[in-house]
């Protein structure tokens, strides 16, 4: 996938549940509506957790990719 443009990058690699979610929430709060957050994580649980978090909060999980155990999420703030 070609690189998406993001307004902010957040590295959660090496962190375990629930830290990637908590840090994503803090980062999203600092963005404006429509801006994109790029978050990377190595916690395999973050795949389902990020989808659930996005479902509940209404922020849009635009893309998710995985490369050598690193998950990259692009989230658009509602």
């Amino acid at each position, binding site marked *: 996938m070609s690189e998406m443009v993001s307004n902010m990058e957040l590295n959660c690699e090496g962190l375990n*549940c629930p830290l990637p979610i908590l840090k994503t*929430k803090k980062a999203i709060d600092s963005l404006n509506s429509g801006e994109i957050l790029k978050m990377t994580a190595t916690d395999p649980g973050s795949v389902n957790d990020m989808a659930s978090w996005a479902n*509940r909060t209404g922020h849009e999980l635009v893309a998710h990719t995985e490369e050598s155990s690193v998950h990259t999420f692009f989230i658009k703030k509602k």
Partner: protein
Amino acid sequence: MSDTKKLAIIASQGTLDWGYPPFILASTAAAMDMEAVIFFTFYGLPLLKKEIDAKVSPHSNPAMPMKMPFGNKDFKSINWQIPNVISGNMPGFDSMATMMMKETFKQKGVATIEQLRSMCQEFGVRFIACQMTMEVFGFEKEEFIDGVEYGGAATFLEYAADADISLFI
């Protein structure tokens, strides 16, 4: 927002293992735009102390895996079978198990209880300390972190009556 979901938790245990779930769930709920309240009672009260001194006791948790946080992968994966007569009687055994659990959590990138607790407060999770058990066990407000509310069963139930999720931990 009227459709905000509400989480109500009673934290009744203050050991290192049982201290985690209330803070994990409440901070995550807040991160998911829910309202959350934790009511600390009985042995959950020490979780509000400025410095948390929570330990874990393998003796009272027979299913707890006993693994080493150091050494190579094969060594780490050994589940040590410690007889109860040792885990229950050897001085310092709980402290050793606590140290090992904390080290393993750190290696796995798990937050400390203190970190999760301060994130809860940052996200607006309300902490209520049970006034009655404070009196019984002799806790003073000065021992606790700032931002704690004080109340009893009715205070918790008033909130929990409208909660979507209620948990006793």
